[in-house]
């Protein structure tokens, strides 16, 4: 039975020359006859020529082909797929907020600036840092800002040689990539069998060229770095600074503060811990917090409060700033959503985030372990996420992480993370946030058990999954080999 409900043409296939959504453009025909004709375009760009109804229908139907937090449990490790409160969206999209030009004078922007200032203060408090700038537009840009500040700090002290950034092998790919973008050399150190950093390896690599270390804590393998104080001491004594990759902040929010652990700079993924939506790929916000010594270097602009008035800093206020990272002030609308979320949570709510994220993760870990799944770090507490390894099942019945991931889709669960961290093969990185209810975790466990049974009975069936999605398993190799990235190919 062909499932017509699943099909959706490419928008250009709905296009008919001359058709258009007339109410959406000025009533007067276009006329550029006063401009030099050599500078004008001759061809008609390939934009759809469609009616408004066709566009609404097409994209509404496309949207239905996505899994999302609003429709499915989404235990995607490292991604912190929390509920995105609808109020954050509604309020951030109040007409006056949307209509504000980024260069509107401060005199007419006190409402918006007050929100940004309050958010800076809240983030400072929960991270234990001494300054916050909201301008980085995602985690990776926050990392960039952080490493750039570390470099600026060393250089300002005349320390011209420090150009090595130490990165554990379990780190997210953005960490080493960022270090390189900042002109640094990456020194990789291994992770021990218990998930903690190999301190001896660290000791071996620190030295006069050490600019800093980038750490995630809890790390990307889902465990809290117990030797954090020792690491901090080693790096600081060597003259390096500590960078905290705050993508996993959800695991410790309200419990431990990176500032108290000795970090000099942190980026936060507000699109994770502060629940701004991920939007199918972004936008995010990678706000950075810094310790005292890095305050002068923070990226511009941030908001100052003078008396009861707010304004953005100018170059004159912060001569040592690493400068601007975006055209204006970062993803303001995302920061607004984070602010609203923070106010809804409040002090008490902040304390509960990590508590319940960890409760859920440890509960799920215990149940899956009891159900016969192997844990990557069976002797450790889960942080807000944990790793199931499928080495045994892969060997015994050929069941891979990808198979489980695809089959979970048929059971209406988004798959856990399977491609990361790179150092573990055939594993599932499972993160369940504080927002999910016990019965949904239980249902997930049932689904996992069911898949295991199905695989034991008929591994070929599992290899064919998913069966209920708009498409079956896709040919990634063909996608890369026979590149078809624009229509018509």
């Amino acid at each position: 039975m062909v499932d017509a409900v699943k099909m959706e043409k490419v928008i250009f296939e709905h296009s008919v020359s001359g058709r258009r959504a007339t109410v959406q453009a000025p009533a007067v025909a276009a006329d550029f006859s006063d401009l030099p004709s050599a500078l004008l375009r001759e061809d008609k760009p390939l934009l759809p020529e469609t009616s408004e109804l066709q566009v609404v229908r097409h994209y509404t139907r496309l949207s239905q082909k996505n899994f999302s937090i609003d429709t499915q449990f989404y235990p995607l490790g490292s991604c912190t797929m929390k509920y995105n409160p609808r109020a954050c969206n509604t309020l951030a999209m109040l007409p006056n907020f949307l209509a504000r030009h980024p260069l509107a004078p401060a005199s007419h922007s006190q409402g918006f600036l007050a929100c940004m200032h309050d958010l800076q203060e809240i983030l400072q408090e929960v991270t234990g840092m001494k300054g916050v700038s909201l301008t980085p537009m995602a985690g990776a840009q926050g990392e960039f800002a952080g490493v750039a500040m570390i470099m600026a700090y060393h250089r300002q002290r005349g320390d011209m040689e420090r150009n090595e950034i130490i990165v554990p092998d379990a780190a997210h790919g953005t960490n080493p990539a960022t270090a390189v973008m900042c002109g640094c050399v990456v020194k990789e150190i291994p992770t021990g069998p218990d998930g903690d950093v190999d301190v001896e390896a660290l000791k071996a690599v620190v030295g006069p060229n050490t600019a800093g270390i980038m750490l995630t804590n809890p790390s990307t393998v889902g465990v809290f770095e117990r030797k954090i104080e020792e690491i901090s001491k080693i790096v600081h004594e060597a003259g390096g600074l500590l960078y905290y990759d705050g993508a996993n902040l959800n695991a410790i929010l309200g419990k431990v503060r990176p500032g108290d652990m000795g970090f000099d700079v942190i980026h936060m993924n507000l699109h994770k811990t502060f629940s701004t939506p991920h939007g199918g790929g972004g936008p995010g916000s990678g706000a950075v917090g810094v310790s005292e010594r890095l305050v002068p270097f923070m990226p511009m602009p941030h908001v100052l409060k003078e008396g009861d008035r707010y304004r953005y800093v100018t170059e004159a206020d912060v001569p040592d700033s690493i400068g601007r990272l975006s055209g204006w002030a970062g993803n303001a609308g995302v920061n607004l959503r984070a602010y609203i979320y923070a106010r809804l949570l409040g002090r008490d709510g902040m304390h509960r985030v990590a508590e319940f994220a960890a409760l859920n993760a440890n509960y799920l870990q215990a149940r899956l372990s009891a159900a016969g799944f192997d844990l990557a770090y069976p002797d450790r507490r889960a942080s807000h996420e944990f790793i199931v390894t499928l080495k045994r099942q892969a060997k015994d019945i050929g069941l891979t992480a990808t198979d489980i991931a695809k089959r979970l889709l048929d059971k209406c669960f988004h798959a856990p993370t399977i491609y990361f961290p790179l150092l573990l093969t055939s594993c599932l990185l499972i993160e369940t946030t504080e927002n999910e209810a016990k019965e949904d975790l239980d249902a997930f466990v049932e689904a996992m058990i069911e898949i295991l049974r199905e695989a034991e009975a008929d591994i070929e069936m599992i290899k064919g999954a998913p069966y209920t999605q708009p498409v079956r398993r896709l040919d990634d190799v063909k996608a890369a080999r026979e590149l078809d990235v624009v229509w018509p190919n």
Partner: protein
Amino acid sequence: MPFIPHTETEIRSMLDTIGVNELEAIFDEIPDDLRCGQLEGVPEGLTEYEVTRLLHQRAAEDQALSCFAGAGAYDHHIPAAVWEITTRGEFYSAYTPYQAEASQGTLQLIYEYQSMMASLTGMDISNASLYDGASALAEAVLMAVRANRKSKSRKLLVAGTVNPTYRKVTNVIVHNQNISLDEVPFDNASGTTVTAALEAHAGEDYAALVIQQPNFFGSLEAVDEMTDWAHANGMLVVAVANPMTLAALKAPGQWGEKGADIACGEGQPLGVPMSSGGPYYGFMCCKQPLARQMPGRIVGRTVDLDGNPGFALTLQAREQHIRRSKATSNICTNQGLCVTASTIYMSLLGPEGLARVASASHKNMNALLAAIKDIDGVSVAHAGPSFHEALITLSKPAAVVIEQMANLGFLAGVSVSEDYPQYENALLVCTTETKNDADIAAYATALNTVLNGEAA
């Protein structure tokens, strides 16, 4: 407990399953002395109603001004359908489409977006977005340095008419890698780059020449000549474009004999609200040979096990999560939701609609200049055509005029003398299709009042 569904009974039973007695025990691997305190700096939680009221109050403090400012952020009409669809939960609350089968909506949309952008810019390939226009230029610069294997200098030439903030941001991002930008001076009278200025650099080793069209002043550069000159001198050409204007202007891919090599810019004019400067998105397109140097995600069309068409992320080997320190960029999360909005916007406007937006914006600038040029204390800085922005100089400091105009309900424009000291009291003004004759007349009256203390 905001957003936490657990009841006491459930918490107990979950703790039992874990085998601990209390919630705190889950954190027993964290050294005691690291536990954080009361978080007194965080205010008490509010109910949704209380937050709603607070945010309505804050929004009300920021009176919406009739916007005559551009400089990279533009006040266009956004059809209601755009964000009503964009903020549907399935788009809004999805992650990056790593699980392709469960993300065909987002993936197909990005494929459509790539197709539209490639066509608008006259390029072969588009990525799925970068952060914003300014940082997209930085990525384009890094890409040009990587791609131009013949050039060893790690230097680029940049027209002085390229948005000064974009140049600053680019510099912040690329200088760590010892890459630098040399500025090409422009002609003060026309506000455009003249060939003589380029000729001063003939034969020098630069990875690329960066050209913005329409340029920062809204003036039109001789892009064909500039492109051919750059290519003749072994440089790549990086075009910075406003995609709205590409409904009318020659696509960068068609500049000169061979076309620009990379086109980038700010996607905001295509259906993204001004929203205090973000989230917007940077677009980037290039010619086929440069494809594998492209930063950011790319979606490709392929087939599934049954041979039916489907979409997936592709060329991921360029990206940080695979290539790590050798990736084309560190970008991971991009600006997907804004791209969603833009794709719907472009579909609603179509080629004719977008051209009408461009044309109305342009005609309104002609009308505005006509309306204000004879006001005492106003001079139009540049001869030659403007697209929908223009530079005027005033008899009073621009900051003062902006403040006083704001009190009359107008965002008068953007002060630019800091970046271009050669123009005194300079104001960059902009019009879009959202302005009508009455708006323009009202602006002129207000400006006259502010400059000359009287009604026109």
